[in-house]
């Protein structure tokens, strides 16, 4: 509901515009002047809202379960879907998925939309000091990350309608679908290999993408620093609480450490992984541009020869592809940036709020204590008076 409720203001027009450009279902473009079909008029807002209602999609990831087979042990998660969307057969689904299935979903999405920013999945393994792969903290952290992943897909205007998502959420057995796309992937992999072998690199990358690249580099290093600081704070706080236990002090402060670890740090990790995703997306975009450029050069070199028309068409198609990819990436980039800002802002706000609450609790305890001490003192004074 979070996405559909944000129909106010600029989001409204943006969503609407996106739909007209990308959806396969034909829609008449709005008139630019005011009127019922203009984006900001009340009646069009109403239409929007109704359409949004029809597009509801709620996904939850929960109930991790361990499965033991002869070959391996793995965890599956229950994925529950509730929807009113027309492209789903029913309104409710419940399936079990394992991490590999999520990987499949993500790579299919990336493959179909090479220049869109697909939210990253949590890492396969966590290296540092993990003895058991499946301890409770790890499972819970992963579960939350998987939930965030699906929420991001659901919120994405283009990816949310992907048939792969549909299959992922509804099919009881994912195996046959995975086999199909396997061949697709291998083809794609082959193509990429071929391309990268023949590439000399992009000629002239449009400036906005170079800026994007620079920004991503810098952002990833800043987020890394924030993450390091946060981890240190968690450590220091944990040690502080340990020492405090010796006091049998009138207050407990475990809430501090839990919160940072469960709110801010996972978000930071997600965005660190995003940096890699972004770099990959930009690389793919570069490749597409490079492919076009090399084909065009080849054509120019050949000059007047037979089969020109076919080649011209091919080059033309590639040029269009480049343009489409560029603008889609641009759109997605600003969507991503806005989403990042919201996520980080929320996480930081939550951290600050948690700290405020912690101090408020301590304050209450000390004030109560002070009151009791003062009362005792005044009682004694009363006794002294003959």
């Amino acid at each position, binding site marked *: 509901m979070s996405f559909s409720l944000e129909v106010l203001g600029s989001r409204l027009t943006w969503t609407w515009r996106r739909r007209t450009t990308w959806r396969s279902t034909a829609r008449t473009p709005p008139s630019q002047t005011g009127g019922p079909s203009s984006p900001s008029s009340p009646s069009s807002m109403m239409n929007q809202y109704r359409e949004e209602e029809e597009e509801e999609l709620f996904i939850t990831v929960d109930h991790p379960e361990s499965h033991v087979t002869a070959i391996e042990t793995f965890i599956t998660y229950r994925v529950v879907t509730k929807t009113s969307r027309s492209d789903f057969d029913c309104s409710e689904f419940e399936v079990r998925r394992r991490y590999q299935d999520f990987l499949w979903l993500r790579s299919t999405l990336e493959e179909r939309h090479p220049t869109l920013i697909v939210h990253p999945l949590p890492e396969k393994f966590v290296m540092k000091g993990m003895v058991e792969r499946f301890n409770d903290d790890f499972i819970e952290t992963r579960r939350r990350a998987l939930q965030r992943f699906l929420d991001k897909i659901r919120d994405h205007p283009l990816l949310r309608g992907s048939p792969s998502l549909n299959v992922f959420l509804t099919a009881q057995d994912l195996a046959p679908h995975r086999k199909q796309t396997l061949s697709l992937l291998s083809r794609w992999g082959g193509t990429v290999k071929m391309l990268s072998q023949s590439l000399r690199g992009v000629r002239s990358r449009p400036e906005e993408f170079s800026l994007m690249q620079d920004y991503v580099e810098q952002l990833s290093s800043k987020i890394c*620093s*924030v993450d390091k600081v946060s981890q240190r704070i968690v450590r220091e706080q944990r040690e502080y609480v340990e020492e405090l236990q010796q006091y049998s002090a009138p207050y407990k402060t475990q809430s501090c450490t839990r919160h940072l670890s469960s709110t801010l740090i996972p978000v930071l990790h997600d965005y660190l992984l995003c940096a890699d995703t972004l770099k990959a997306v930009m690389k793919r975009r570069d490749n597409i541009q490079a492919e076009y450029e090399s084909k065009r050069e080849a054509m120019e070199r050949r000059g007047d020869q037979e089969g020109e028309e076919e080649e011209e068409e091919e080059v033309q198609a590639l040029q269009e592809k480049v343009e489409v990819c560029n603008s889609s990436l641009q759109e997605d980039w600003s969507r991503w940036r806005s989403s990042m800002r919201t996520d*980080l802002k929320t996480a*930081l*706000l939550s951290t600050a709020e948690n700290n405020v609450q912690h*101090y408020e609790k301590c304050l209450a305890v000390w004030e109560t204590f*002070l009151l009791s001490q003062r009362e005792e003192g005044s009682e004694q004074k009363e006794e002294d008076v003959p």
Partner: protein
Amino acid sequence: MMADSGSNEEVAVIGNTDITSTETESNIINTMVERGTALLRKMEINKHGQLKLFQVGGAPAAPDTLWRRYSEFELLRTFLLVTYPYIIIPPLPEKRAEFQWHKLAADNLDPDFVERRRVGLENFLLRVASHPVLSNDKLYFLFLTEEKGWREAVLETGFQDKVDSRLKSLSAMFRVKNPDKRFTAMKQYSDELNTVISQLLRVRARVADRLYGVYKVHGNYGRVFSEWSAIEKEMGDGLQSAGHHMDTYAAQIDDILEEEEHYADQLKEYLFYTDAVRSVCKKHELIQYELEMAAQELISKKQQREELATGTVRVFSLKGMTSKLFGTESQEQRESRLAALEQSIQEGEETLKEKNTECKEFVQMAWQDIERFKEQKDKDLREALISYAIMQISTCKKGIQVWSNAKDCFNKM
């Protein structure tokens, strides 16, 4: 005890007027101690008004300020310990910094430590000045007024001779038969208090260390947010100002811990007080033991007299034995011995009476002081606890303030 402990001495100035900063500086310049450190302090008139210290009267004109070294304080205290063994003598501040919370080596010349020591010394003098018995001591008065002649005066009292040997007091502790139960209980309480306070101070030091870490690491947020804000457009301002608040937060801990140190010092004073209480209890044991010994001796002498008079041997004595072996003594010899014994018994009875009185007086005066001390302790510790709670409340409020400000900044992102 009297030997100067060498180079690590600071010097105290005791004055009766408010010393302005220029006076302070000139005093520092005027007096150079080996390491060039000088303590300056002002002494307030004592609370009970008993010490008419700076009154112009029959007393010779007292100088406004004089200088005292730490070793002289120690000397004064030792003198008081010996002269008033039934009084719980206020303690001096620690010689070396202990229970330190930061990992730096405890430096005796660290200005913070020196300042805290100054406060401790001032506190010591104030405690003595407000004590109903100690404040009347002449040598204490001289300590505050006679810079040059004081040391000689103290040594002249010959108080060193009165110091009980450690061996004596140890054996008393083990052999005393009927110690006053109240004193035994007091000693036990004092030992428990000592343990509790030591533990508390130790934990506090460790907790302070950790808390310091927590606050200071948040300062890193300040730096990182600031760097980050440089690459952001919409988030830049919010991040930058949030970063400032993180720096503010990190800086708060310095004041917090400095103030906490003050409360730790108050606890330390009572930690050292427990030693003083212990001394009084031990002195009681010694006196009681001597009383018991005197009584014992008297009994044994009386028995000897009886034997001598009746001729029966109940108590073994060498004289009796040898006379049995080598023949009885003559009547004259017996009478002279009896006379000597009578004399001895008389003396013994005198001694016993004295010891008895001494013991009774000691118990009475000591117990009076103990009651006074208990009251003082309860009041002081309660006040300290309340002040500590107030400090914690202030810390919490500062924390709330800073994080609320940070929240506002994040909201603007």
